[in-house]
């Protein structure tokens, strides 16, 4: 059964439309990510699910019950905020039990629940402290505890990790994932961080300009983005986009690439070539991920393009090489031992079986 159904949701402020026809259907126990750059409408959508913002058009249902117009307290949801929003005047115990108190849960039952939640999150020793006396990670846990205590149908997370430093963020991310696997609760999670989205989500909704650009499993979105925005947004470093000409020479259909000296025509696999032929235009944008371009090891590789090596950035496990193809900067991922030297030229091989092609005008994927 679906725990959350969003049907044709619209939101406008005055004359300005911020969300257009959002449709999402979420299964019970699913971890759904709303990801996108700031201003894409993801937080607005979350607030609408929570009942903190009104719905302009469309329908939201939780557990099959239409909830438009219901207040946040009657939606059977709990929410974890970016700043945690712990009540500074109450102890941790008070914070966790406040929602239960508001729902008139009797006192003994309340303390039972608080103790159970505290045990789950290993914050029992903090129960009598005030939020000001907690570290960032502890506050985060209390905020999650406050949500857990209520046992709602649906958990909402609004960028809960973005206030933490990098190391703690990684730890909490893993903890959240474990928590979800253990409790099997339904979660909607808003973030602008595509790595969080990839690692946590059962499914990801990539949002941009008030629309869901693509909704799917993380790997599927990574491998098969529907348009140039999704392709560029998911993945780090971002996918390379190279404007290029498509041409057929000596019976081979391919793409023209140049590293500044000679221009090469690299033949495309049949499946891609067929799609591009039926699309029928001469110019496209080639999308290729950094890991699908590699410096050639063989001396005389005919399928490789000679390119300048402008900057070399070692990061430890990988080394990134910045080069230029068809006058745009591209990033190439190499294993550390095989990186060319900055200032030299290198022959780059393009794995065109993984290549994507986008319409230069509409940014839609064409192959």
């Amino acid at each position: 059964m679906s725990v959350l159904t969003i049907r044709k949701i619209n939101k406008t402020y005055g004359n300005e439309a911020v969300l257009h026809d959002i449709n999402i259907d979420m299964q019970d126990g699913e971890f759904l990510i709303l990801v996108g750059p700031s201003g894409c409408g993801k937080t607005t959508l979350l607030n609408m699910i929570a009942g903190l913002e009104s719905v302009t058009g469309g329908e939201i249902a939780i557990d099959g019950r239409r909830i438009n117009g219901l207040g946040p307290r009657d939606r059977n949801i709990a929410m974890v905020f970016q700043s945690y929003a712990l009540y500074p005047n109450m102890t941790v115990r008070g914070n966790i039990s406040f929602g239960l108190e508001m729902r008139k849960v009797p006192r003994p039952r309340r303390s039972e629940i608080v103790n159970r939640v505290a045990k789950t999150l290993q914050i029992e020793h903090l129960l009598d402290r005030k939020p000001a006396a907690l570290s960032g990670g502890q506050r985060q846990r209390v905020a999650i505890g406050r949500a857990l205590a209520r046992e709602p149908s649906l958990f909402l997370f609004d960028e809960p990790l973005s206030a933490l430093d990098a190391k703690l963020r990684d730890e909490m991310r893993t903890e959240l994932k474990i928590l979800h696997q253990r409790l099997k609760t339904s979660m909607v999670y808003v973030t602008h961080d595509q790595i969080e989205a990839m690692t946590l989500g059962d499914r990801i909704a990539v949002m941009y300009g008030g629309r869901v650009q693509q909704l799917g499993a993380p790997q599927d979105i990574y491998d098969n983005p529907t348009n140039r925005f999704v392709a560029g947004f998911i993945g780090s470093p971002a996918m390379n986009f190279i404007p290029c000409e498509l041409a057929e020479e000596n019976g081979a259909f391919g793409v023209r690439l140049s590293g500044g000296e000679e221009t090469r025509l690299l033949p495309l696999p049949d499946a891609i070539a067929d799609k591009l032929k039926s699309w029928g235009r001469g110019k496209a944008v080639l999308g290729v991920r950094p890991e699908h371009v590699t410096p050639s090891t063989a001396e005389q590789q005919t399928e490789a393009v000679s390119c300048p090596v402008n900057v070399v950035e070692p990061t430890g496990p990988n080394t990134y090489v910045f080069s230029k193809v068809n006058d745009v900067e591209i990033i190439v991922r190499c294993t550390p031992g095989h990186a060319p030297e900055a200032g030299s030229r290198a022959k780059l091989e393009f794995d065109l079986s993984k290549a994507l092609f986008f319409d230069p005008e509409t940014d839609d994927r064409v192959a």
Partner: protein
Amino acid sequence: MAANSPAASAGTYRSSRWREHLDTVLPKLTLVPTGAAALIFLYGFIAWTIWLSFTKSTLLPNNRFAGLAQYRFLFKLDTWWVSVTNLVIFGVLYIVICLAIGLFLAILIDQKIRAENLLRTIYLYPLALSLVVTGVAWKWILNPDLGLQSVVRSLGFTHFTFDWLVQPHMAIYTIVIAAVWQASGFVMALFLAGLRGIDGAIIKAAQIDGASLPRIYLRIIIPSLRPVFFSAVILLVSMAIKSFDLIIALTGGGPGYATWLPAIFMYNYGFNRGQIGLGTAAAVLMMLAVALALLPLILSELKEKRRASTR
């Protein structure tokens, strides 16, 4: 536990809608008393006072329209022009001296001074005192018979005279002395807060660039206090125009009417002499004066903000 059974759903839905409705209505309801008070006692009274200034009201308010007659009459009164002249003298001196003393003391206190808290407390306490108390105290200090004049004379300067309090042309300056005493510490506190808000790195950078300390203050720090000047001047202007208690207590408006200000004029004509029309006309002109003094300030500050944001 918190799950709603479908059967209860319709009732819950209605009660939920009702509580949501309450949450949209209650906030507005909360503002009603204040809104009503502002509508009546602020805007209603402003309109009423303006209307009264166009009527022939004397001892009691009446609605017989007089056009600009009260204003014309007002402009013929010597007492009015003395009040206006006094306000200009008092206002300009009060504001300039308060700013100068306030800025000077703030800069000194900002030099990592010992006993800073004690000094700040001393400079600021006059503002906590009632202006009537201030007036009574200064009236005693400035009285020619037993006050400062006699103190200085007893030191051997037997011809020293300091009798401004009873000199019609000088009495207004005694009001400046007392008013500056009362408010300059407050201006100091404002400037000090501004100085503390300045990023220390800017000063360090200027020192590395080789600027001397006075130069740093003149070229960097004081110009960056612009918003503080702005709010200090706004406050001082409205305090100057409203000045009433201090003058009543210190000089009683005298000698004669030598130290009248528009606020005194308004009180005397509106309440003591039964000339409501004249009194309200004076009040309206006072409000216009505040508006005329503050509008250019606020506009220039807004313009500055816009310039800064588009830069």
